[in-house]
């Protein structure tokens, strides 16, 4: 009975969460009070412009840097003091993997595999064959794309419960990218792996993510289901003479050359647009994920 209860509690714990994360470099704020919690089994796409702080957020979430404020938890343990048990359940692939360049592909996988209890050597053998990567090649001599694929392989072979990928498709060709996304979807769907991946390629996110989080200038502007975004967010256009009626709360606000206002607004708890949307002359346009991203990030 106790074991069942423990398993249930384990399953309901957020694999990765942050409260008020703050960090900066050389006086510049990179993370500004980020709150985030991943739902078990979800695939969260973290999106933001270059330099928005995605990599820093991921590093802080995993305890790879000490944030200046706030705290991060991984499987309910402080990210900076993870137990071996928690570490065995995580896999992380950095943006440009550079580790262990002095080992061959086979040596690196053999070395890392010795530390994981559920290492899948067969998956490695088959995938290396399918991806046509020579196991005896030195990591230093692989192209950036091949290097990223080998690191993805390393991450997937440990059969993690939480997979964190920092711009995983950045160096991949379209075929490899599609294959990676398929693998992510498969892992999440069949094995219940929770995935967090950062990207600025919206189409990748639409293809596999169940949730999306927008990071802009160190702040998490929104975090919701991907399917909800079209329904929940819209662009409110107000002619110049009505700009005084613009709602105070909006995700972005831009004044056009003719004096009119464009705002990204969201429905309230009752599913209603802000009051200004009902004014004569005002217009609400549905926004696709990419348009929403551009509107917010511009």
């Amino acid at each position, binding site marked *: 009975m106790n074991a069942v209860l423990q398993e249930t509690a384990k399953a309901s714990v957020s694999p990765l969460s942050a409260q008020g994360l703050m960090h900066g470099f050389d006086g510049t704020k990179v993370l500004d009070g980020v709150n985030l919690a991943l739902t078990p089994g979800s695939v969260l796409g973290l999106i933001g412009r270059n330099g928005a702080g995605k990599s820093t957020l991921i*590093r802080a979430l*995993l*305890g*790879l*840097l*000490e944030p200046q404020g706030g705290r991060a938890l991984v499987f309910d343990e*402080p990210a*900076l*003091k*993870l*137990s*071996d*048990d928690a*570490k*065995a359940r*995580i*896999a*992380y692939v*950095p*943006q*440009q*993997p*550079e*580790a*262990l*360049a*002095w*080992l061959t592909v086979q*040596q690196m996988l*053999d*070395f*890392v595999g*010795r*530390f*994981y*209890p559920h290492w899948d050597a067969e998956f490695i053998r088959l995938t290396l064959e399918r991806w046509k990567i020579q196991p005896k090649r*030195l990591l*230093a*001599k692989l192209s950036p794309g091949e290097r990223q694929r080998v690191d993805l392989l390393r991450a997937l072979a440990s059969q993690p419960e939480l997979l964190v990928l*920092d711009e995983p498709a950045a160096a991949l060709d379209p075929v490899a990218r599609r294959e990676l996304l398929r693998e992510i979807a498969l892992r999440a769907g069949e094995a219940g792996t929770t995935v967090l991946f950062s990207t600025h390629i919206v189409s990748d996110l639409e293809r596999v993510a169940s949730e999306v989080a927008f990071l802009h200038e160190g702040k998490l502007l929104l975090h919701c289901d991907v399917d909800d975004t079209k329904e929940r967010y819209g662009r409110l256009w107000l002619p110049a003479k009505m700009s005084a009626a613009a709602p105070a709360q909006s995700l972005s606000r831009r004044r056009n050359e003719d004096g009119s206002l464009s705002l990204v607004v969201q429905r309230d708890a009752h599913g209603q647009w802000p009051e200004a949307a009902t004014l004569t002359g005002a217009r609400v346009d549905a926004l696709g994920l990419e348009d929403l991203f551009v509107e917010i990030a511009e």
Partner: protein
Amino acid sequence: MNAISICLVPWRTTAATQRWLMLAMLALVWIGSAVYAERGFGDGARWTGAILSGYANFLAGMILLAPTLLLAVDARQLRVPRMQHTVLPGLVLYGAMLAAIPTILLVMAGGEWLGVFAIQVMSLTIGFTLGMLPRYFAALLGFVPVLLNVFKLHFAPPHAGNSSFYDIVACVALLACVSALCWRRQLRAADPYQQNFGRPLVMQVGANRHGWPGWFVPRDSTRQLLSMPAWMQPVADVSRAGPARVAYSLQIALGGWLLPVTWQSRLMRWLLLLIPTPVIIYLGFASAGWSLRNMLHALLATFDVWVWLLGFVGASLSLVVMMVLQQRWRRDNAELALLALLPGLGNGRPLVWQLLRASMQRMLSIQAILLAILLAVALRERIDALSLCMAILSQLGSAAIVLACALCNFGGVRLPGWSVGVAAGVCYTLLGLDNAYMPLFTRATEPDTLPVLVLISAWIALILALATLAWHGWRGVQRRAHPFMPV
């Protein structure tokens, strides 16, 4: 092409610090040589002055003139109009100036212009050619003292028309041809920036692009791997890695000199060390007048000296380890991220202890053996207690460098990038001075107490400074949640 562009060539090929330090060194050596040539005794002093200036010009050829190749390659690759045509005239102009200035100074001091000029041109050409050749040719620098020793027996000052003068002319012509071939090959290579074992020394050091382009900044180990042929690459032995052997696994993850390799790979390393042996034997024979007995006698007579040189080996090992640790703790997304999330390595103080073991165990073992040899020879020679103390302190100082550096990295105390260079400078200077005052070197029956005491104080001061640094590092270690965060 205009005169200003030609004059600006060194400004476009060298960093400001590099340029000004070289110019200051050249000015000092040129003036010093001229003063020595004028005030020294006889013709010999003038030729010594010319050779001293020549040594400075050798460095200028390598550090100031050879980097013009970088500009030539960049100009060609980027298709910058007209720039390609300014490089060679700039090279010739500054080469001529570097040869002419010391010649004028030495002629004013009474030297013979043609001979002095020939030595300056030859020195510049040797330096420049070394910059054009692959970096393994730089190992020849180690043979310079022996080569000078050998050639001085056969060397006559190069007067106009004598055979030495024509030897120099022939040597310059040969080196100029070699340089031209290397220059042309690199310039026209399909990918002149490609990392390979055969690329010119100047391309290797120029590729670092740090403040002091490359010459004194340690090369990243990944870059080193890229430029190594496959048969020279170390083969790691990962068969014994795992949570049961944390220190061993950490050594694999830290790589570089700490990487545990297979016995075949270790054997290959030793074989590589044997490559220069025939050259050493040849030079040894030549300097001993081709007599085996003389050579063996010379080896036995200088045996103690070789033993003392082991001190340098110990210090060099420390610096190599320091360099590896500095490189690993500066990269965000490489080994640190992997190690921070690798299960089975443990946490807290036991992990730091394993890290220290991984970083220092092999180095300390070798240093202990070196120290034992050193002490055995010192006892056989019955050297005094102060000298013995100096020898022990030098080994302790070398080990303390790594301890301080390791704890600073683990504890997040940032050491500047040039700290390896400074540590090397201080350590080698003190070791050099140690050797100069050792009874084994000076063959004095009674060592000069005051300089030895000063040296002992300097070593103690260095060790205390390193201990303070290590203490700061240790406090950082206790403050930090785990050691795998970049500094």
